[in-house]
């Protein structure tokens, strides 16, 4: 099997995902083409050699609909030979696109593939594309509940208090603010308009001054779902749950933002042909399906599976990047795999910076790689939880 290398990983900054957010005026396709042009320019890339562009998107409808990857390629300056595909694996899509690219390269079917994701949550909010689980019969057979309530279930079952999850959120904010201020986010490519005027060049969602006292004032975001029946459904599946303590708020859950991420994956030969320097190799990838009602417990088993495939253990990993969908997801992951604060999400995460659904996986891969390079460390794991109980993980190693 050939090896798959990461030649570059870039992302847009994350704009607040609502009207008034800096990227609200930007069409999703322009988030993508900004990165396509930057990837081409930064690497002096001969795009005729890039065979495919796989882009994930959580709400692939309307202006994000159909196949935004190919649409963006046609619309950009890239060569017509590059083809494109849209991918949906809920929140895991951005990383799954990279993993699929790596799989194609490792299999020898393709040599150079771009992959990532895009999400304009300000323009197409969560639920914009509907979904099969919205059907009553499907929902009943699936024990479907609000995802956030799954996070509250984890907190309840593991005994994480409101203060525990809020404390984690404060840490995420402080770390992200510091990383932003010190310029650690090397992978950011500013979003510019068609005149070349910069629209946004930094993550605007971060609130470095977040305090425990401030967070404590926020109301639980999923209490209503709990009270309107979803809590009862959860208990039918988890009889040991007496009551669900709703501890997650907008302050300790991932933020709603706009953004895109792009990763260039290729074989050793393809890199050499274009004089590209590999930044890391992808050692292994894994997907797992876990219990779908609680939904958010996939990262630990996905990580274990990926590590096993790579012949590694948790101790061999220098840094972990777990998407901060909700604080309890990270706390359970740390507890399950025994990972100290110092090794995980060291520059903050989605609680501070936001989680543009389809894009996040590709974005945080870049964040991890930047930090491994800055600290001159070797291996890292990127992992996310996703809808339906999906867990995904990728192990990378700097070259």
């Amino acid at each position: 099997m050939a090896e798959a290398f990461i030649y570059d990983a870039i992302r847009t900054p994350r704009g607040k995902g609502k009207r008034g957010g800096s990227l609200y005026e930007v069409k999703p396709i322009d988030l993508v083409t900004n990165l396509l042009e930057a990837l081409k320019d930064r690497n002096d890339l001969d795009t005729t050699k890039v065979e495919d562009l796989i882009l994930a998107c959580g709400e692939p409808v309307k202006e994000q609909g159909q196949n935004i990857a190919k649409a963006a390629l046609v619309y950009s300056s890239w060569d017509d030979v590059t083809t494109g595909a849209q991918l949906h694996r809920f929140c895991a899509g951005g990383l799954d696109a990279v993993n699929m690219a790596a799989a194609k390269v490792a299999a020898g079917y393709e040599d150079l593939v771009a992959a990532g994701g895009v999400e304009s949550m300000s323009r197409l909010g969560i639920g914009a594309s509907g979904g099969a689980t919205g059907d009553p019969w499907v929902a009943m057979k699936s024990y479907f509940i609000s995802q956030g309530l799954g996070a509250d279930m984890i907190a309840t079952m593991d005994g994480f208090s409101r203060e525990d999850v809020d404390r984690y959120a404060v840490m995420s904010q402080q770390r992200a603010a510091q990383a932003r201020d010190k310029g650690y986010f090397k992978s950011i490519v500013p979003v510019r308009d068609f005149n070349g005027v910069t629209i946004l060049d930094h993550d605007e969602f971060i609130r470095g001054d977040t305090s425990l006292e401030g967070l404590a004032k926020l109301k639980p975001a999923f209490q209503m779902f709990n009270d309107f029946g979803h809590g009862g459904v959860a208990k039918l599946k988890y009889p040991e749950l007496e009551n669900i303590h709703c501890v997650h708020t907008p302050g300790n859950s991932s933020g709603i933002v706009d953004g895109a991420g792009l990763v260039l994956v290729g074989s050793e030969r393809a890199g050499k042909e274009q004089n590209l320097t590999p930044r890391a190799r992808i050692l292994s990838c894994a997907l797992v399906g876990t219990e779908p009602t609680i939904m958010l417990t996939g990262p630990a088993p996905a990580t274990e599976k990926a590590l096993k495939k790579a012949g590694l253990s948790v101790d061999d990993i220098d840094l972990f990047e777990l998407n901060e969908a909700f604080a309890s997801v990270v706390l359970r992951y740390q507890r399950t795999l025994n990972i100290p604060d110092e090794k995980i999400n060291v520059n903050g995460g989605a609680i501070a910076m936001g989680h543009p659904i389809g894009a996040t996986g590709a974005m945080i891969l870049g964040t991890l790689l930047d930090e491994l390079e800055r600290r001159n460390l070797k291996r890292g794991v990127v992992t996310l939880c996703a809808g339906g109980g999906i867990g995904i993980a990728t192990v990378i190693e700097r070259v």
Partner: protein
Amino acid sequence: MAYIRLEKDSDGIVELIFDQPGKAVNTMGREYDEAMRAALTELQTMVVQGGVSGVYVRSGKPQQFFAGGDINEMLDMDLNPSAEEKTKMYEGVMATKAPLRQLETLGVPVAVGLNGPALGGGFEIALACHYRVAIKGVQVGLPEAMIGLMPGAGGVVRMTYLLGMQEAIGLISQGRRLKAAQALEKGLLHELAEDEADMHARAKAWIKANGDAKQPWDQEGYAIPAGGPDEAANQGLTFFGPANVMVQTKNLMPAQNAIFACVVDCARVDFDTAQKIEGRYFLSLLLDQTARNMMTAFFVQMEALNKGASRPNVSERFKCKKLGILGAGQMGAGIATVAAQKGMQVVLKDISQENADRGRAYAEAFFNKGLAKGKLTEEVKNACMALIQATADYSDLADCDIVIEAVFEDRGIKAAVTAECEAIIPSDSVFASNTSALPISELAQASVRAQNFIGMHFFSPAEKMPLVEIIRGQQTSDETLAKAFDLAQQLGKTPIVVNDAAGFFTTRVISKTITQGAIMLEEGVNPVLIESAARDNGSPVGPLAAIDEISQETAYKNGQQAKADTLTQGRDWQDNAASRILDRMVNEFGRRGKVHGGGYYEYPEGGKKHIWSGLKDAFAPQGYTDIPYQDIKDRLTFCQCLEAVRTMEEGVVNVVGDGNIGSIMGIGFPAQTGGVFQAINAYGLSAFVTRARELEARYGSDFEVPSLLLERAESGELFR
């Protein structure tokens, strides 16, 4: 005589008259199918030939329109047919629908006259008519969900198209029966009539005036009220609705799931496609064990019970005019409330006027609540209250037809009031003891007229609980039993009849699951799992919460009373898990029940109740005992089913339906099982025995299989 007659009048209106031969009411079964198909073929021909100005659908039965589907025919169907047979069944369902679609698209106006109840299939026929006239006061609706089914002859589709998703789901999944006036308000009926002649006249007048009538859904541009599931206004319904159904039914009632889904699915597509979808959901319920259980218990057995299957053959129906009640506590006052509601004179006697007045005030509070909710008027309340006489004087009972004693569960006190009362009341009056456990024949020893002595076990609160367990003592006469039975029905209660033995039927059976809860708690099983298991079984209340409601203190005292009673009788008394745990709860931890501030649960102010944290230290200090969740669930139900079989073996219960209905309506046995006996049938007799033996091996003799069940398992004879 044919099921359907077609008679054309001088105005060219063809009357389609349902008159099923040999039946008092029309039902929708095979005979209907054939007759209806033939009738529509003929009607189509007549319309083509010309001279038909309209169709008037009516019943040939006096005061009976149409009763609905033939439940017995459905119960006879194979539950696990082959794929080919299922296809045939589906085709059969579609074939039943077809004539109704033909009827509403004949091209001439179609009116229907409802001269009596139009429920289920009967109302589905009515919905396929353009214009619906009903005599004031008749009941209409689609109550199929109450017996685990759903409408399958277009009722879901037409109701959805007519009223919109939200209203259709509410009416159908709750099986709501509407009075004609209510149905008119909702648009399910078009006109009310005074009597049959008036109804015919109105229906025909409408036909003559509306030659171009069409169903709403066959009119250009018609849209379902409030639109389909993708409308923003319906998002709440489709997002939270399924969860609400699941929570309400604990996901144990397939009909409610199917109805909700079917309504939504139907609203997404055109009318004819929707009919196919409805047929598929309906078929799934025809092949559903839960539906079978509920049809068996709530239709077949309930009907037999109401008709007096357990009533002795005493021809004269008794009507109680004046009811005496001894003891004006919650039970006595509750019975008085109900009796007054039903128009009986009530004498409510207690040892002091003050106590008796307190009981009367209980009734008044009940009526005031109804008044506040608009359920009754001031006049009705005053009339009811005027019927209740509170007294401390035995002589006021002198002309009572029946006296029910609801005094403390103490043989001595009961014996005393029996003697005192019998000295006053007429010699043919019935004396009924409302005890939940004391053997009636033993109590009857205090009576000078043991043939008139009987047990009538009401459930608390008596003004709400629908069941009365009638206990026949050794000397109780047929006449007395018939009177008690008739009184229960007069009070609007469902009577079951059992023979005498300690605990009778219901108390014996429910004590098994309460005890099983205590045994598991003592074993160190997580109490949250015990309670969840009861919930997930479909029990309205868990074994621990049940004691909290009664209060640990009361349960403890009852236990002490039973112990004293047993020892007085010269028999041995053995402590059990329940008594040991109650002892500790009351005497060691001071957790005496909900009314005393908390029992197994804590009741934080403004918060949700939760299991008292001290339970773990008390009963599982080393950590919870881990047993399979399915075992916890099965222990709570199997112990009850097995005890029920024992009561049958001992001759306490003789009619299966009494056991099934009694267990569901009296002691909250999961309704979707069809009751304690039907639950065994549904599980499979042999499979039940195997599972019970597994439980016996793991958890002891409570799960020992009685020989009656072994015999049944061997012979394959179901409990029916």
